[in-house]
């Protein structure tokens, strides 16, 4: 019993570590995709629609647009939203 519990605990811990340690996480939330699409449009950059977004950090996303263009959307230390073409 104790061996099984140890195995289960180690697997859970490994999963948590893997989830938290990953530098890039897919953001499939439609609200986030829509928000990023609006931000890119507000900055006057061509995109059409954001199809995928990968979270790279706090307020930092790497997005891919429907037209094939890719951007980095993040908030700089001054609190400004920046859309940077990749």
């Amino acid at each position, binding site marked *: 019993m104790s061996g099984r519990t140890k195995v289960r605990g180690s697997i859970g811990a490994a999963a948590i570590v893997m989830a938290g340690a990953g530098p890039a996480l897919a953001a499939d939330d439609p609200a986030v995709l829509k*928000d*990023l699409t*609006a931000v890119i449009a*507000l*900055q006057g950059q061509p995109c059409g629609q954001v199809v995928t977004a990968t979270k790279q950090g706090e307020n930092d996303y790497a997005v891919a647009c429907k037209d094939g263009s890719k951007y980095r959307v993040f*908030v700089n230390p001054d609190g400004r*939203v920046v859309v940077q073409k990749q």
Partner: protein
Amino acid sequence: MTNSMRVVAIGVVAFLSQACDSTPPTPRQTDGTVSREPAPPPPAESPKVPPTPPGKTVPREGEQPSRDASQKPTAPTRDTPRTTPPVPAAAPRTAPPRAEPTPAAPPPAAPAPTAPPPTESHTSPAPSTQTPATTLRAAAPQTAQAPSAPTPTAPPKAAPLDLGSLEQRLRDTKAIGVFTKLSLKNQVDDLLEQFREFHKSRDQSMLSRLRQTYDLLLLKVLSLLQDGDPALARDVSSSREALWGILVDPDKFKNL
């Protein structure tokens, strides 16, 4: 032979003289071809005519008394052209009177044709110019009435602007994502900074550019709100001019 010829000639002359003396009274007056006969009859009758008509002696010279009595004003001019071809001798006599009526005729004829066109041209433009004038005059009241119509719709725009409420509703709305709100706030801050420069420099040339930027930013906000929060979009749209008034007024802008 010569005596017989002379006798015959004298006889012919006597016959002719008798014939002339007997015919003059009635038949010559009725004939339309009397003008062919030589001048003798008119001089004989001319002394009779003067007493009857008191005036106008010129037309009587070339015409017979009967015609003068019946057609004084118009007949001379009308008959003379008809009689001129057959009578060569009468032509010189009637020529002066013809020359007078002919110049007289053209003037009336000339003014007649020319007069109508000018009158028509004057009259036609006159109505045309009058009609536009009337239309313009008629349009003026219409245009004056047109602005009066929108005025009833203006009062709704005069709704009091609650800037704090609008700001809070924009912060709380879920129609705009966090990134988008932050990006909009950046652009609002940029616009406010431009207004600060405008109020410092008081350069009126900046105003049109500021208005353009302001309209574009508001359009972005409205496009973001119109689907997720139409009520807030409507209120923001109705507050457009009031917000602009605050931004343009230096005193109100300081109190922001």
